[in-house]
């Protein structure tokens, strides 16, 4: 292993190269710029291409082009750029193109605060494009080291499911520095649990079979396979059609190839949940690290608190919320996003609370105070999941 003191952006770039990515198109935006910079330096060293696009919409379309020629591709941005991915993200979902996308979360709405962490994109990454009728895969690292691991995993899943996979990492993950171990030998890669899958070519004639199977190679152009790919509803061969039945078959695949193989995607970290604590604190990304510190402290003082950290966000792991308990969602947003899914997934007589803020992480002491008041049966929010003190 080689050890660095580096940013999450650096870790993601190294992981992408390790996973076989040889094509990156991007557009500068804080706090994802360092990923583009790292790629611009790193990719040519391994024979890969770094392209700077005229905007984010073009960047992801360039990635689609790269992938259609058979390359492993990646792009990265922050919220204001991610919305410009809406168009190509939809194309890639529908035509089933493997692409890895980084969304580095800063504070919104619009340009918001550039250099501070936010988690306002929880639903945006679930519904990155219009029209519905699809599932998405989203992974959320909480450290630079995990960003390394999940980037490799994202490339793996993108190939198997032949679709875009989004890494949702808040600004502290991408911009913060940390000790990072990068494996050098195959043994070290295996030890880290990294999984890899090479690109294969689909030789047709059915490029879009109406089945939930994974591991079907994607369309690759230039090999005279007669492959067709477009933004229209495809027949199984790829012809454009307006038939409802064809649409039904197509979106069945887009939805159920993910839903029926959720076990390959779902990842989480359960901490201090074995004794069915009264309070379960749910979070993802960097806030989960403060939550874990706080839960450790809380346990020392005898509070019955546990922590559930989501590593994969979408498809949403409903099955993890079977406990009849008090839930607290800790998020870097003020409107409450993850909390809505918890509310939906947990038993109906559970209490669900929300602690949200932007730009700065909550402190351990602040969390301990909240834990105590919830355990005392008090509420931190008078109305539904609104934040009490503004």
């Amino acid at each position, binding site marked *: 292993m080689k*050890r660095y003191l580096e940013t999450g952006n650096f870790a993601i770039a190294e992981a992408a190269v390790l996973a076989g990515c040889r094509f990156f198109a991007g557009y500068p935006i804080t706090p994802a710029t360092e990923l583009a910079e790292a790629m611009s330096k790193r990719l040519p060293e391994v024979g890969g291409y770094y392209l700077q696009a005229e905007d984010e919409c073009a960047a992801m379309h360039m990635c689609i082009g790269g992938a259609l020629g058979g390359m492993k591709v990646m792009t990265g941005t922050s919220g204001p750029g991610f919305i410009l991915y809406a168009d190509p993200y939809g194309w890639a979902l529908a035509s089933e193109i493997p692409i890895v996308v980084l969304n580095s979360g800063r504070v919104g709405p619009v340009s918001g605060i*550039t*250099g501070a962490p936010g988690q306002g994109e929880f639903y945006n990454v679930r519904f990155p494009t219009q029209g519905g009728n699809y599932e998405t895969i989203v992974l959320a690292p909480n450290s630079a080291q995990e960003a390394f691991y999940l980037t490799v995993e994202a490339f793996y899943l993108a190939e198997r499911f032949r679709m875009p996979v989004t890494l949702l990492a808040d600004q502290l993950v991408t*911009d913060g*520095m940390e*000790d990072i171990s990068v494996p050098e030998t195959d043994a070290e890669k295996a030890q880290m649990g990294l999984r890899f899958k090479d690109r294969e070519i689909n030789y047709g004639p059915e490029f879009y079979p109406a089945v939930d199977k994974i591991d079907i190679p994607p369309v690759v152009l230039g090999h005279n396979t007669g492959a067709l790919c477009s933004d229209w509803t495809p027949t199984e061969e790829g012809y454009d059609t307006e038939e409802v039945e064809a649409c039904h078959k197509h979106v069945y695949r887009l939805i159920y190839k993910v839903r029926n193989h959720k076990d390959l995607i779902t990842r989480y970290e359960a901490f201090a949940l074995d004794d069915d604590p009264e309070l379960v604190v749910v979070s993802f990304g960097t806030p989960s690290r403060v939550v*874990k510190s706080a839960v450790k402290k809380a346990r020392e003082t005898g509070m019955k608190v546990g922590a559930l950290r989501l590593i994969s966000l979408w498809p949403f792991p409903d099955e993890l919320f079977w406990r009849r308990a008090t839930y607290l969602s800790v998020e870097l947003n003020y409107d409450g996003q993850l909390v809505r899914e918890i509310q939906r997934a947990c038993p109906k007589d559970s209490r669900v609370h929300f602690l949200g803020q932007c730009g700065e992480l909550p402190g351990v002491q602040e969390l301990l105070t909240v834990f105590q008041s919830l355990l005392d049966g008090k509420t931190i929010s008078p109305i539904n999941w609104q934040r009490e003190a503004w």
Partner: protein
Amino acid sequence: MKERTEILISGFGGQGIVRLGQIIGLAAIKQQYRVTMLKSHGTEQRGGYVRAQVIVSREPIDSPIVEDPDYFCAFSTPAYRRHVDMVSQGVIFYDPSSTEVDEEKVKKITHYSVAARDIAIEKLGQAIYTNSVMLGAMARKMEIFGKEILLAAMLDVVPKFKEENARAFEAGYQLIK
């Protein structure tokens, strides 16, 4: 060592705050510790202070934020004022040429006055060695790091003027007993 050691460095933009954090982070890696470093920038630069939060531990680090620094190094009065209340047991380093401290706090918390800027100018002729003097002073008290390792990390991160930086570091180290 303690389960985790928290180090906070804060000052104005352009004072080399992040670089100082990076040196300490690199020293941690050289000693096989785990380390995180959050750097605040962007709007906060305009707001008057930059901050590097370093956590060092033998174990994987959960919270990466400094809430009760073991070592707080202040390079400006606003930075000092903003963070001083966080320190409960730790020690504070400050440069009196840039930072005015609160006498009430000095009574309760150990403060090390390090005239880093003056020493840099006096001994090396240039203020650019201020941080190296400060790091040397901190090295005397940050027992978790070997002196030689901090020095090596500094020379890795700042590869220019090695000899001068090493002298500045030593001057800071000798300043504190």
